[in-house]
């Protein structure tokens, strides 16, 4: 038993929650309640089936009144889950909400241990610590800080576009920052969408142009966020605007500059068409690009190539632009600072690099394509005008689509990329539609769990597409029969038929999986988010806070959080916009009162605390020779408290006395 007695005025109410069987199965709750009853200061101790239920909360309120309780301790789940609930119940009972402390005996005890006796002992120790700690709690007030109602959306794919428009329609000012020259993301590259076979451009481009023209939206394409400062409600964001050498305000999108470039024929690899097409040094990424503004690639433009601003190039583009004077070779990269209250991160994904699976011959055999390349091949505005032809111009007679390239594989990525089965089915349908070829799908499992997805699979089965169940071993050009001569041969174990087959085709399509963006780690650091082990951004709670992050005011949507299809992405983007609205429409945020303050009488003026504060919240008052903390700047980490040699800094909610009594409590026998 802990030694020392509590002051007579202390009347602690202790409650232990069974959480159904979640806690009660591993912790003897009545025994812990009985034990707590005898601890100093405890006036009342109960065990109850569900403390978070309405009757549970009412029990606390009633007991505060009836038994004149002045401190509350609840042993249940994680404080990250229900601390607010019980603080509110404490307040509703007439006490200051900070006279409450929570003990985590579910996530940190019942769920992780296997010995009931040990788990019960641990619950007692944690309860003892909380009871010792709560005696030192003080009444605190929640601080209210006004919130900036503007929102930043980072990434202009379908997720960013949808979130931006939702907020803009609600009357909020939105900044949309996209690093590519146009918004649209991966969806803009797709030909059709599964399972409805809607034309991707037809459903996406109206939304893109709405973003471009909406009075509430500031669209910054070809720009990147480079710095984020501040906190929920008051972020200061620095954005780098890359030089496109075309003035966005003056360009009308007439594209005369492209037509009149000194390069008569496009000859440079075209990023939008996955390198399958060609573009000029001055270009627009694709016909519906938003903003409708051209840009100049300084790496290939003659005017830049031979040293800046020489007279080697005739600058026919400038001539063609004429009076508009939109082309500006002197344009420089610039940085802009914006202030926003909330940020939605929708930075998307990258496709798996098929070269990492060398046995499929991508990069080695010219007729091995990735699925994204085939999307462009099929598309009417693509490099072949929608004609399915091989690199040498022949039409393919047989096409093999290999599923799960870089997914569900311990050697590459273990996760299922969720969209590949469905887009492979879509591509099989489209390839059949656009060519005479026989189409094979090589799959491990067919995953079609969305609305109308299974029906789409059934439809494909009846369309005559061949389905072979088995992971392809290799793609080779080594022919064993005259029929295989000059073709690609897929070696695969047909697991339904039970033997190994060789299937000659002319074109191989690799259904590459979805991965975190190459620079996901930098983005994560920028916005102070967490990543799962696979590198996708981590949501605050997988079920109940799927678009929140661990940083307040920063939300997530789309494939940057994990592989997902367009319907799910749009739904999530809408959710993120709603969460951001719920935050900023309140007008203010309530801040946890865990800031630090200095006990003037004890401060010796040594200045140890000043350099450790990352927010420069501590200044030194020369006249009084004392340090002072600016409470609005303090975020409540407590680093200065730990560094003060004279113990003259106090962190509310985490005072030395509180923590020391907690240490004492967990160790007492």
């Amino acid at each position: 038993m802990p030694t020392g007695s509590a002051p007579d005025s202390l009347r602690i109410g202790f409650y232990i929650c069974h959480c159904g069987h979640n806690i009660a199965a591993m912790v003897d709750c009545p025994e812990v309640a009985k034990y707590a009853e005898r601890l100093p200061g405890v006036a009342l101790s109960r065990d109850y089936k569900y403390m978070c239920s309405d009757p549970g909360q009412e029990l606390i309120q009633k007991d505060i009144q009836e038994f004149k309780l002045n401190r509350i301790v609840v042993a249940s789940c994680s404080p990250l889950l229900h601390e607010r609930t019980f603080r509110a119940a404490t307040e509703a009972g007439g006490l200051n909400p900070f006279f409450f402390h929570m003990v985590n005996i579910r996530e940190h005890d019942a769920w992780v241990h296997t010995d009931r006796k040990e788990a019960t002992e641990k619950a007692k120790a944690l309860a003892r610590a909380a009871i010792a700690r709560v005696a030192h709690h003080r009444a605190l007030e929640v601080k209210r800080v006004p919130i900036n109602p503007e929102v930043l959306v980072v990434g202009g794919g379908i997720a960013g576009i949808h979130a931006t428009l939702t907020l803009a329609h609600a009357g909020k000012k939105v900044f949309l920052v996209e690093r590519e020259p146009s918004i649209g993301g991966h969806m803009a590259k797709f030909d059709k969408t599964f399972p409805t076979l809607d034309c991707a451009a037809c459903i996406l481009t109206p939304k893109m142009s709405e973003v471009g023209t909406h009075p509430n939206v500031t669209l910054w394409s070809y720009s990147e966020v480079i710095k984020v400062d501040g906190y929920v409600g008051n972020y200061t964001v620095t954005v780098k605007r890359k030089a496109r050498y075309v003035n966005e305000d003056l360009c009308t999108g007439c594209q005369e500059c492209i037509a009149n470039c000194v390069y008569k024929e496009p000859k440079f690899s075209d990023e939008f068409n996955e390198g399958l097409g060609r573009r000029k040094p001055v270009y627009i990424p694709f016909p519906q690009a938003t903003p409708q503004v051209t840009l100049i690639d300084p790496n290939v433009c003659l005017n830049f190539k031979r040293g800046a601003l020489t007279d080697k190039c005739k600058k026919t583009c400038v001539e063609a632009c004429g009076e508009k004077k939109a082309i500006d070779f002197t344009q420089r990269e610039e940085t802009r600072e914006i202030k926003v209250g909330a940020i939605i991160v929708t930075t998307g994904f990258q496709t798996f690099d098929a070269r990492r699976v060398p046995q499929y011959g991508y990069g080695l055999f010219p007729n091995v394509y990735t699925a994204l390349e085939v999307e462009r091949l099929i598309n009417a505005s693509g490099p072949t005008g929608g004609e399915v032809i091989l690199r040498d111009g022949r039409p393919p007679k047989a096409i093999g689509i290999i599923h799960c390239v870089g997914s569900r594989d311990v050697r590459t990525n273990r996760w299922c990329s969720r969209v590949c089965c469905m887009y492979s089915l879509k591509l099989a349908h489209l390839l059949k539609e656009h060519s005479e070829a026989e189409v094979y799908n090589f799959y491990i499992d067919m995953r079609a769990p969305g609305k109308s997805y299974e029906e789409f699979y059934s439809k494909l089965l009846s369309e005559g597409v061949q389905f072979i169940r088995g992971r392809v071993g290799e793609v080779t050009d080594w022919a064993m029969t005259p029929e295989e001569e000059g073709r690609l041969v897929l070696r695969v174990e047909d697991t339904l038929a039970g033997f190994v087959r060789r299937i000659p085709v002319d074109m191989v399509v690799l259904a590459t999986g979805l991965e975190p963006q190459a620079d996901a780690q930098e983005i994560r650091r920028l916005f102070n988010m967490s990543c799962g082990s696979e590198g996708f951004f981590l949501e605050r709670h997988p079920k109940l806070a799927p678009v929140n992050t661990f940083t307040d005011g920063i939300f997530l949507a789309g494939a940057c959080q994990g592989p997902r299809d367009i319907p799910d992405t749009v739904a999530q983007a809408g959710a993120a916009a709603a969460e951001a609205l719920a935050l900023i429409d309140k007008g203010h945020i309530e801040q946890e009162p865990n800031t630090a303050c200095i006990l003037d009488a004890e401060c010796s003026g040594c200045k140890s605390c000043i350099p450790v504060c990352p927010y420069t919240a501590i200044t030194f008052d020369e006249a009084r020779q004392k340090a002072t903390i600016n409470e609005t700047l303090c975020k409540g980490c407590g680093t200065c408290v730990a560094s003060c040699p004279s113990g003259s800094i106090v962190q509310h909610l985490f005072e030395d006395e509180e923590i020391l009594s907690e240490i004492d409590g967990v160790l007492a026998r």
Partner: protein
Amino acid sequence: MSPPPQSPEWRPRIVAFFCTWCTYTAADLAGVSRLKYAANIRVIRLMCSGRVDPQFIFAALANGADGVLIGGCHPGDCHYVEGNYKMLRRFEMVKRLLHEMGVEPKRVRLEWISAAEGEKVKHVVNEMVEQVRQLGPLTLPQRFEAWDHELAGLEAAVADEPVPANEPCPALSL
């Protein structure tokens, strides 16, 4: 100093200080994932590993803990920019100090565990419990008691020899 003989039932007691943003959340994740680890650990939640005052570590050991575990965010990931770096510096100092005091530095451990690393919580806790089990009980409270007892004995012995009042100490008179 050699550890006192230990019974097979002896279980080390470890106090842990976890930052709320990374390691505490990871421990929650370990719970939600129903990972199983040793029950010898008692977690105290702080906002940041930068809040871990060296005196908390010493207080825990002095009050009967056999080991202290500190968990924070990975370098560069601190919710408060660099609180974990501050802890890292202090930690090196604490380890040296403990060594000087005759306490094995292996009894204290600092780990970076992100919110997604529930598995790492399990792994680190189990490993640390095993390590401290091998070191044996620290028994600082008992040793303090023994020292107090020894001192009391000496005081009593001195008290029996009356010191003449107002006589200057010979050493001082030199």
